[in-house]
């Protein structure tokens, strides 16, 4: 076991936590456009009872003290400090993941919202990734069920609000798995981006398509791949069609696929522990047919997704944090540097991203109360359109979040699905119900 710096401590103002490796990039990048907020929502079969949800939330926050924090600026790095405030359930607005005050003292880095039958949690990526957010939402949902219906006999994989907290949940697993002498991956150049102007600040267009899991699984199986391979291929293909329509791009269409590193390295961390792998279509080589795109995605993901290759990604992420020169630079200066690198260089390397959280399972009593889950990616003014996928029961919900007015990408995505025999039921937050 390698040694790593202490990730937490106790100060006069309560507990404090170091930011994990990924959060150190997200915190300086925070702005009104780069909100870093992503969203997980669950749609119930009946309207939400607000008071019961508030009580359930208060139970949950005691179990997840590392989310009961606010972001504070240190001299060299930001840190999380225990937030003495009470997190309140908020109304769900038309434009999710926007209008935050995350840097303000006392401001939580997560929000719990509700509207009609939907309970949504919006997490800043500085706090955790999709894995941590999904566990929190599931705990909140089950606690809400207990408030409204009664005791759940078996919580199965869901964290019980009164269970003992594992000390490893606050661990920065990036540092534990970092191998100093490992090589970094080959760096890639800039990618093609959608040319459209951004919407005014505060607007975020959301389009969700609900598709039957069986149909998607059958289409993927027919080609010998997984649901993730299939949807990533459809997304790449849709981006290719959009790029071809908007001109002849000189830069490749590159799609980032976030990977949950807990599947490859033993970790119980409830903070960020993910990396990204990429799939690339160089349109200077000509048009790619869908089957070609699928094979490219299939082999590319299998080539990338192994422990040794992912260690090179870890090396790339952690080496900057461990750089002695960068460490002693005051935060005020580092902020500008990190924000520029994150927004321009890191985000500039991908055309879009597709994040798949997989299939959600719940305790038997609660499962019947849930209609579907939704997963919304964080807004990005550089990539402009991103996609997120989550499955529940016999349905998969594919959600696009975009910061432009043009809906070309999702149009091509759902049209391609239709051509492949899968019909989506689409709803939006901008009047396309």
């Amino acid at each position, binding site marked *: 076991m390698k040694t790593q710096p202490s990730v937490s401590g106790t100060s006069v103002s309560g507990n404090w936590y170091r930011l994990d490796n990924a959060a150190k990039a997200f915190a300086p990048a925070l702005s009104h456009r780069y909100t870093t907020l992503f969203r997980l929502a669950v749609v119930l079969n009946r309207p939400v009872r607000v008071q019961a949800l508030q009580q359930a939330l208060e139970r949950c926050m005691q179990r997840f003290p590392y989310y009961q924090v606010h972001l504070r600026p240190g001299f060299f790095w930001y840190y999380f400090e225990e937030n003495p405030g009470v997190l309140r359930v908020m109304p769900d*607005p038309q434009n999710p993941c926007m209008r935050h005050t995350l840097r303000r003292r006392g401001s939580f880095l997560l929000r719990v919202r509700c509207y*009609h039958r939907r309970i949504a949690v919006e997490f800043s990526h500085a706090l955790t990734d999709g894995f941590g957010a999904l566990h929190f939402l599931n705990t909140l949902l089950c606690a809400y069920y207990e408030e409204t219906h009664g005791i759940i006999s078996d919580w199965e994989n869901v964290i019980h609000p009164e269970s003992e907290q594992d000390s490893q949940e606050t661990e920065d697993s990036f540092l534990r798995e970092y191998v100093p002498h490992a090589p970094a991956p080959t760096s890639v150049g800039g990618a093609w981006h959608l040319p459209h102007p951004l919407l005014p600040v505060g607007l975020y267009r959301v389009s969700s398509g609900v598709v039957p899991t069986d149909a998607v699984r059958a289409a993927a199986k027919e080609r010998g791949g997984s649901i993730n391979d299939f949807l990533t291929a459809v997304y790449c293909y849709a981006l290719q069609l959009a790029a071809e329509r908007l001109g002849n791009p000189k830069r490749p269409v590159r799609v980032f696929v976030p990977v949950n590193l807990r599947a490859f390295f033993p970790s119980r961390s409830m903070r960020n522990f993910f990396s990204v792998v990429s799939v690339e279509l160089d349109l200077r080589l000509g048009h790619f047919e869908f089957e070609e795109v699928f094979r490219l995605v299939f082999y590319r993901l299998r080539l990338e997704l192994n422990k040794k290759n992912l260690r090179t990604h870890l090396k790339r992420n952690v080496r900057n944090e461990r750089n002695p020169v960068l460490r002693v630079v005051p935060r005020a200066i580092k902020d500008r540097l990190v924000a520029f690198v994150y927004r321009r260089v890191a985000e500039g390397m991908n055309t879009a991203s597709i994040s798949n959280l997989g299939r959600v399972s719940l305790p038997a009593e609660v499962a019947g109360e849930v209609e579907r889950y939704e997963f919304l990616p964080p807004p990005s003014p550089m990539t402009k359109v991103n996609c997120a996928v989550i499955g529940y029961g016999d349905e998969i919900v594919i959600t696009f979040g975009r910061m432009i007015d043009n809906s070309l990408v999702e149009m091509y995505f759902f049209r391609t699905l239709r051509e492949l025999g899968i019909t989506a039921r689409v709803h*939006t937050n901008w009047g396309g119900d």
Partner: protein
Amino acid sequence: MPYCSHCGVEVDPKATSCPLCRAPIQALARDPGGMPEYAQVDYKEEHVQLPAEYRRRFALYLLSLVFFTPLLVVLIIDLVQNGALDWSLYAAAALLTAWAYAVIPLLLLGRVVAIVFFYVTVSAGFLWVVDNLHGSPWWFYSVGLPILVVLAVVCSVVVAASLKVKRKGANVGAFVLAGIVVFCVGVDVVITMNLSGAGVPAFGWSAIVAGALLPPAGFLLYVQYGIARRIDLRRRFHV
């Protein structure tokens, strides 16, 4: 269970407004069907109100940082320049007193009598320190402390009188002017008794101050209790 027609959520049967959007609750018997998939409005995010104890503690840390940083700086400069602590002790005493002035209301939270008591004590302590820092002390007990006591008594009486009157206006100004007169007389008496060597109370310049300020004070009292009782000045002079 009643519903909010904006948010579509269930609220307590006794609720008169939605806990989320504050919209009034209408008595709907059933789930409002046909609601759009997303809300049609954006809400301004409410700031999280931190507990008062946290804000108070934070203010204490911040004030301590603000006062102790220059204190440390002047001590170091003096030490480096002169090899010993000399003039910086005066600055340090002043900064410590200012820090005490700033934190006393935070520590005593609305206990007015205690706050006044500690303000007077801290002020007396500051004067004593300044008198004793260099050479033999000579003016604290004879001049500094009596003037401080006069000031504390006059201020307390003026504030108490101003708070006690039911109708506040020109009379508060009159109390302040009268307070200044009493303070000046007190200072004059203390100085003539101890510094001029007379040994007996005598009035000098304070009589001029009294002559200048008492007539306007009387006029203000007349305005408050004479004219204002008969004429509604707010109606005449409203802006």
